[in-house]
């Protein structure tokens, strides 16, 4: 076997904000770092984040990190680990200033300080008045962060493998992770990258659902790789849905549209949110509005020929307000629906937005798995960003906390890797059987003949997940979901590719992405069926209450035997008093 090989101290899989922040920390310390990304780094999904990044700078309204911590714990519906949350909120200001120094052009106040906007879920004084905590570089914060971090990495001489697809992790008999098998997409040639430490920073898995806000590259590859390496996925039942996506398409219509006075209607022209949230109405929290829309549709009050969406009315706001306050949204609606929101209401439906669950890590970014007493670190493996579950978002992420998460824990992982490298100075011997297994995953797609098509199966999977594991969840619905996903999984074996060329064979990559989605779908629906309570984004119609006695714990799904285990939530912060679970009212 003449498999090409390269050796590095560190292999980072993923060049979004998480991977890049971590790589920067390492390259600066003279570690030899390779970053692999399936798309050109600045085309990573971080580029789509427009809202901003949270830090209690107190530039607009009084604020401090401890209030930010309270809001994050409460927002997580008490499933977030309070040590990691304290760590993140304390670090936030420093990291935002650091981004500023890297060249992120944050919007400014007249006094020259960084401008901050209010976002949902932010409060002063532990649940008091609205806070203003989100820093933004106009409406292109993610873009600015990604470009600045990329430039800094180029300067620090990080080695980039652009347009390389990571297939699987390489692991030895002692459980050490030794790097990964990757493919150069352009040539189709495999390459073995050996590394003393490997960091997964592959982002979220929005493509699990038919209607989602994510780029098509968000197929949760790192999650699939972790599962296949025997690592469980944590809290996968918690997937954040944004209530107002363009129906059937997924693009996000921000809360701002309702903030400016837009409201939702069912087919009878009723402002149904008044029934579900008499006070907050259309501005109730994301999970409440999403569930209300799904219920209207389920109960036959949806609009359109299929009755499968509701309407967002904006026309009463007038052309001027729309143009001035919501310009991007009007453009999006006109482009994808050919509808003028100043004249007609807009079809909307909840859209999958953010993966709260992921690869279990501690606050140093180390991947951890349960053992008899407590937890054990997987030697040589780290995870950061949306693919990781630290867990700072718990059952529900607050807007603006994800960009923060990726830089805080990207950096923390970088620092911890530097320590690890000091103690583990040599490459371990390669494990050939693990390499062969990974290669088999690749060569499987050389099989010829007739069979199912990747695109068809992917569509069925997405539609199944939307229908049976979306915002409307009951035991019956989820049980059916598990059955359906298992059937789809069986059909994977019959999938064949028609295109066996090597150069830029998108079909082969999409097939491997589908394998990842399939594994993650099962993890998600099985975890959701087991959790008999409603908490944050996971809402069970048959168990409408949060149940702290039985369910204040993290789920861990193992691929082998489709087994679930649980581990306690860390309620003890690092230095301050714990925030004990309370009812979450806004």
């Amino acid at each position, binding site marked *: 076997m003449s498999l090409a090989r390269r050796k590095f101290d560190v292999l980072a899989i993923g060049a979004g904000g998480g991977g890049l922040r971590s790589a920067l920390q390492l390259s600066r310390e003279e570690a030899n770092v390779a970053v692999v990304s*399936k798309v050109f780094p600045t085309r990573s999904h971080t*580029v*789509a984040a427009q809202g901003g990044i949270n830090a209690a700078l107190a530039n607009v309204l009084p604020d401090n990190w401890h209030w930010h911590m309270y809001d994050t714990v409460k927002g997580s519906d008490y499933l977030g680990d309070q040590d990691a949350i304290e760590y993140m909120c304390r670090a936030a200001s420093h990291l935002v200033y650091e981004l500023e120094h890297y060249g992120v052009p944050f919007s400014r106040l007249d006094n020259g300080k960084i401008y901050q906007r209010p976002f949902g879920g932010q409060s002063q004084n532990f649940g008091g008045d609205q806070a203003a905590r989100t820093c933004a570089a106009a409406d292109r914060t993610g873009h600015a962060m990604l470009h600045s971090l990329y430039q800094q990495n180029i300067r620090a001489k990080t080695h980039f493998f652009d*347009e390389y697809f990571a297939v699987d992790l390489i692991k030895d008999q002692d459980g050490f992770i030794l790097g990964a098998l990757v493919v150069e997409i352009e040539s189709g040639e495999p390459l073995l990258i050996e590394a003393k430490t490997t960091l997964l920073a592959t982002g979220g898995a929005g493509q699990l659902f038919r209607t*989602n806000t994510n780029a*098509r590259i968000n197929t949760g590859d790192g999650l699939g790789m972790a599962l296949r390496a025997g690592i469980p996925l944590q809290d996968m039942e918690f997937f954040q849905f944004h209530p107002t996506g363009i129906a059937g398409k997924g693009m996000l219509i921000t809360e701002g549209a309702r903030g400016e006075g837009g409201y939702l209607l069912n087919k009878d022209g009723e402002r149904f949110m008044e029934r579900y949230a008499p006070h907050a109405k259309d501005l109730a929290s994301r999970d409440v509005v999403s569930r209300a829309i799904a219920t209207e549709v389920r109960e036959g009050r949806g609009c359109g020929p299929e009755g499968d969406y509701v309407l967002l009315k904006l026309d009463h706001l007038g052309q001027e307000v729309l143009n001035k306050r919501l310009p991007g949204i009007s453009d999006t609606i006109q482009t994808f629906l050919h509808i003028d929101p100043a004249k007609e209401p807009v079809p909307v439906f909840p859209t999958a937005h953010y993966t709260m669950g992921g690869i279990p890590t501690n606050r140093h970014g180390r991947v951890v798995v349960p053992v008899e007493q407590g937890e054990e670190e997987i030697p040589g493996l780290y995870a950061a960003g949306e693919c990781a579950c630290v867990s700072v978002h718990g059952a529900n992420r607050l807007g603006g906390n994800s960009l923060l998460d990726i830089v805080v824990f990207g950096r923390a992982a970088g620092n911890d890797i530097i320590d690890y490298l000091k103690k583990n100075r040599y490459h371990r011997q390669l494990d050939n059987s693990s390499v062969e297994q990974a290669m088999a995953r690749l060569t499987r797609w050389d099989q010829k003949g007739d069979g199912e098509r990747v695109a068809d199966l992917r569509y069925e999977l997405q539609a199944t997940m939307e229908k049976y594991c979306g915002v409307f969840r009951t035991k019956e619905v989820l049980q059916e979901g598990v059955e359906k996903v298992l059937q789809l999984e069986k059909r994977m074996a019959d999938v064949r590719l028609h295109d066996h060329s090597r150069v830029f064979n*998108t079909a082969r990559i999409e097939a491997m992405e589908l394998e990842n989605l399939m594994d993650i779908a099962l993890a998600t629906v099985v975890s959701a069926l087991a959790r008999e309570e409603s908490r944050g984004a996971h809402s069970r119609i048959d168990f409408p209450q949060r149940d702290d006695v039985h369910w204040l714990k993290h789920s861990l799904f193992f691929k082998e035997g489709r087994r679930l285990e649980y581990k306690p939530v860390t309620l003890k912060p690092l230095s301050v008093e714990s925030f004990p679970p309370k009812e979450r009212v806004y």
Partner: protein
Amino acid sequence: MEQKRARLLWQCRRGMLELDAMLQPFMEKVYDDLPGQQQQAFAELLSNPDQVLLEILMGRTIPENKDVANVARRVREAAGP
């Protein structure tokens, strides 16, 4: 030819759903019927960073190169229900 097309198809995978939803269908449905010059212009369009590309495809920025501007308009028109 085939390879160039395959490469472009991969370049249509971007960091934002809005871009994917415009570029990928265009590649599948319209690209092959374009005259060579416009195919070239499409490749040039794709070389823009994501945020700039979004501005162009939403019609908020008009590229200087006429061919690129034209092909961008066609991409926008092809998107939709």
